[in-house]
């Protein structure tokens, strides 16, 4: 067997490998989180939780195209009370679980974090960057430096857990937003959320396919943008960066880590390669490292920088 080390430590959370299930994919139930963990993920993130239950947008909510996926699910979730029940006993999952928390105002974030405090989450992720849900993220000004500072500060007051702030790739001043998060006490940056929004029109129907008409773009189309964002953020902030966007192979993961990511999120990769994508990415990373004379993944973090 190889002596390749894939384990990483992000904000004192020990991961057996750097792959993390990104929020919004398969994170609806504890049973699915457990299955993803059994398929090799180093950590998993739940689907975002708000104070009240939300039905989200009508179908179609997720569609694919030749370079990725377009989604406008609209943050459907059972609300914090039901979520606290669903995600009780998280030690069964077998890997660290990250809570994704949303709100329309900063007090909501604090309420959800408090409501989930009985569950054994390892970190709190706050996506301030959704491009397609009114009242949340970019559509509510949460992704500006000020909005990000205020919400991160509010969450900082109510939790000792590491806070990951998830940023949008759309914003030219992404580094300024990341610094605002860092100044407010964030412990890591998750980069990036879906980009856009984009639109796909069915030309026979002469109508957009998504019921919300527009949706966030993920997958292959997002990867070069995500890599650039992570590359810039690595220089701009001292806290670790978790790279997300279009990763579905070991080579993609290595590329993101070389840009400066301490760990990598995988979401649309589940569509490309199934739940086994986590295991496969790790195998491919190991193989690449063997072939290229590396023994520790931590040694290549930021390797692409001068």
């Amino acid at each position, binding site marked *: 067997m190889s002596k390749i080390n894939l384990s990483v430590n992000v904000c004192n959370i020990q991961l057996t490998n750097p792959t993390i299930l990104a929020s919004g994919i398969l994170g609806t139930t504890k049973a699915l989180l457990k299955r993803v963990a059994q398929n090799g993920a180093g950590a998993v993130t739940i689907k975002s939780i708000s104070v009240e239950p939300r039905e989200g947008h009508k179908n179609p909510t997720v569609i694919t195209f030749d370079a990725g996926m377009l989604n406008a699910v609209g943050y459907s979730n059972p609300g914090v009370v039901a979520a606290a029940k669903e995600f009780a006993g998280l030690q069964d999952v077998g890997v660290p679980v990250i809570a994704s928390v949303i709100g329309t105002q900063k007090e909501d974030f604090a309420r959800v974090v408090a409501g989930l405090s009985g569950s054994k989450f390892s970190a709190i992720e706050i996506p301030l960057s959704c491009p397609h849900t009114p009242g949340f993220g970019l559509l509510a000004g949460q992704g500006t430096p000020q909005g990000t500072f205020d919400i991160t500060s509010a969450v900082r007051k109510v939790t000792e857990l590491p806070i990951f702030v998830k940023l949008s790739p759309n914003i030219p001043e992404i580094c300024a937003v990341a610094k605002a998060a860092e100044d407010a006490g964030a412990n890591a940056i998750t980069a990036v959320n879906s980009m856009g929004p984009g639109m796909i029109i069915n030309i026979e129907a002469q109508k957009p396919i998504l*019921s919300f008409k527009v949706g966030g773009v993920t997958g292959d189309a997002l990867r070069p943008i995500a890599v650039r964002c992570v590359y810039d953020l690595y220089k701009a902030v001292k806290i670790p960066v978790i790279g997300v966007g279009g990763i579905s192979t070991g080579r993609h993961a290595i590329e993101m880590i070389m840009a400066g990511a301490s760990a990598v999120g995988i979401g649309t990769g589940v569509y490309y390669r199934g739940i086994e994508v986590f295991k496969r990415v790790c195998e491919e990373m190991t193989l690449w490292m063997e072939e290229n004379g590396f023994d520790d993944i931590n040694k290549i973090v930021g390797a692409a920088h001068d």
Partner: protein
Amino acid sequence: MIEQPRMVKICDIWDESPSVKAFFFKFDLHFDPGQFVMVWIPLLDEKPFTISYIRNDLMGVSVLKRGMFTNALHNKKIGDMIGIRGPYGKGFGLQTNSNSCVVGGGIGMASLATVVDRLNDATIIQGARTASEILYQKRFKDMNLCTDDGTTGFKGTTVDLFRKLLTRRRFQKVYACGPEKMLYKVVELCRNHGIEGEVSLDRYIKCGFGVCGQCDCSGQRVCVDGPVFNIKELSKMEDFGKVTILKTGARVVY
């Protein structure tokens, strides 16, 4: 792989019962019995339906009028366009030479119709609330019928009728679809009698290709790992027969 709806023309509409219509369209892809499509009405919504007719390149879905979407579909005319994407999911594993029984409750019979087409001499049990809601009366001969009100066939449930048949008949395999409480009891009977069984489950489905997690049943994605599950798989699925998940993701007990 691109999974976007393709617009197709409705080329025929049949009345199956006062509340069920079959819609036919051309869709030249291979379908296994038990697989489903997502039917899209632009600007309205998109819902999953098991294919209930496979006739060369002609496909059909049998739709029960139940809510806003199915009402809109029932108002469609021949020549109107609908969007179709699929086929999705894992269908039934047919054993054509075995002595089998098909158990359908209500609109669940639609998911089993193409199974009956492929099996030569399956015993069919179909249950409905009342006589007029029995489906496929001309399509399938010699069905064992039951109704809640006794207006045709045996007065009682499909489970009662299945249990009754088991006292004098032996089956190797059972294929079932219907309300999940019914399926749970059918599976229990299969287990007790050493019969192989496969059932098709119903959950709220969004993406259809296994990424959104909406249709979870104890860690199994009904859209890609199912909708058809065998008895062995079901024995590990604690939610089967007990819990379903709403559009919000909230769990509700049946």
